């Protein structure tokens, strides 16, 4: 019996089974996903990312409680890393979400990365579609504890919250490329700890540097110097620029959560008004289809090449008879050989 109808009715067992089916790449699961797809596109997807230990799970717990107070149904996908050695994983994010137990308006699913490196699992985007089709209004997606480059969540969520905590880095960390660039909302969690205002200041400085509409005052050899704004047409800036607000929270005590919810609501309104939601959705789909295409082409290519041939080429690379580029050229042309 197909799971499609029960999922559309919001039956929890069917939802759980379908997500497992996606994770295990069962062909029936793909069929169900195809049938669910026309029913997706209604949920608001919020991503939460940040370094390990910044309090992402606790924040997710608090945000879910706040959305429940607004009577919105909430699904949570919490991603933890798979051990590269054993292939196993400990998924421990539920420990911080015990408050949500017993609420039929909440569904928490833990997910292991199973070898994906972008901060999410391969099944995350499709699991979100299942929750979307099942009628969940808010989908909170918590990435693994990330460093600086795991930005896949930006391709999936409508709004991305980057969670920081005091004492993790200086101003130079803040201007490096990476996860800070994907933030729609910044949260400085553990704001009761020493150094919280420094973290806020470092983020503010970084945002000032990237905000083209602001005239800058820079410290140059100890002298304060004014620098003109880099963009001269302010109306265009007004349309395009979203400056990520910085919220201070103490998630363990529920402090500052209302401000985060308000900031997200504002970002959502901004996206709707500017027509940016459609644009983001388009970019998201391009990304998703490209990923699938890559996997498909790779699988096809490897299917057509015998493992012996692959091994033979690998050995040649290992023995420095062939460089990696040449190896790729040979493998990519397997069709014409």
């Amino acid at each position: 019996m197909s799971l499609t109808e029960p999922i559309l009715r919001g039956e929890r067992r069917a939802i759980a089974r379908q997500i497992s089916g996606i994770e295990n790449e069962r062909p029936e699961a793909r069929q169900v996903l195809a049938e669910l797809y026309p029913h997706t596109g209604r949920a608001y997807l919020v991503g939460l990312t940040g370094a390990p230990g910044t309090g992402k799970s606790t924040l997710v717990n608090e945000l879910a409680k706040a959305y429940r107070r607004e009577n919105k149904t909430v699904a949570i996908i919490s991603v933890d890393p798979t051990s590269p050695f054993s292939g196993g994983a400990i998924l421990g994010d539920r420990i911080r979400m015990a408050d949500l137990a017993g609420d039929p308006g909440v569904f928490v699913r833990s997910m292991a990365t199973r070898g994906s490196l972008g901060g999410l699992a391969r099944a995350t985007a499709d699991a979100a579609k299942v929750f979307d089709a099942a009628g969940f209004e808010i989908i909170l997606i918590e990435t693994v504890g990330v460093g600086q480059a795991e930005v896949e969540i930006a391709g999936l969520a409508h709004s991305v919250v980057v969670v920081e905590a005091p004492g993790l880095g200086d101003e130079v960390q803040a201007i490096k490329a990476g996860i800070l660039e994907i933030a729609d909302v910044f949260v400085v969690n553990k704001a009761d700890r020493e150094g919280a205002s420094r973290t806020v200041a470092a983020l503010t400085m970084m945002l000032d540097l990237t905000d083209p509409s602001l005239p800058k005052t820079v410290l140059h050899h100890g002298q304060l110097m004014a620098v003109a704004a880099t963009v001269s047409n302010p109306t265009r800036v007004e349309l395009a620029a979203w400056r990520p607000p910085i919220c201070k929270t103490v998630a363990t005590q529920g402090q500052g959560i209302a401000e985060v919810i308000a900031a997200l609501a504002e970002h959502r309104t901004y996206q709707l008004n500017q027509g940016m939601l459609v644009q983001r959705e388009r970019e998201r789909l391009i990304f998703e289809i490209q990923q699938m295409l890559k996997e498909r082409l790779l699988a096809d290519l490897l299917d057509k090449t015998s493992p012996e041939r692959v091994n033979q080429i690998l050995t040649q690379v290992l023995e420095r008879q062939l460089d990696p580029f040449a190896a790729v050229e040979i493998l990519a042309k397997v069709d014409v050989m």
Partner: protein
Amino acid sequence: MSERKIRVLVAKPGLDGHDRGAKVVARALRDAGMEVIYTGLRQTPEMIAEAALQEDVDVVGLSVLSGAHLTLVPKIVDRLKENGLDDVLIVVGGIIPAEDIEPLRQLGVRGVFGPGTSTEDIIAFIREQVNVAN
């Protein structure tokens, strides 16, 4: 990548706060390539059954050291059945007196592991039972 992973819920029902054993087992199962959903201390039967449902686990592993296993386990089994999880493998570890093992089996607990059980035995048992079920 498409091999099927065994998913195990490791939970500590009841009020005792000793989770070392549960953590050792969780870690061993992880090292055996399983995905372990670790829920922490003081889980109610309702919480355990809800987590088992949402996480679609193959195995529910309960750690009880308080002596309350004959009170807690029947409730958990009932809640799991209410959620339609009749086929989930239930194993119990902890301080279980020999005379209580049979009553637990009657309730549907398929594996009981007392102090001194090697983690290899637990892993082998889970693998065998889950493979039979599939």
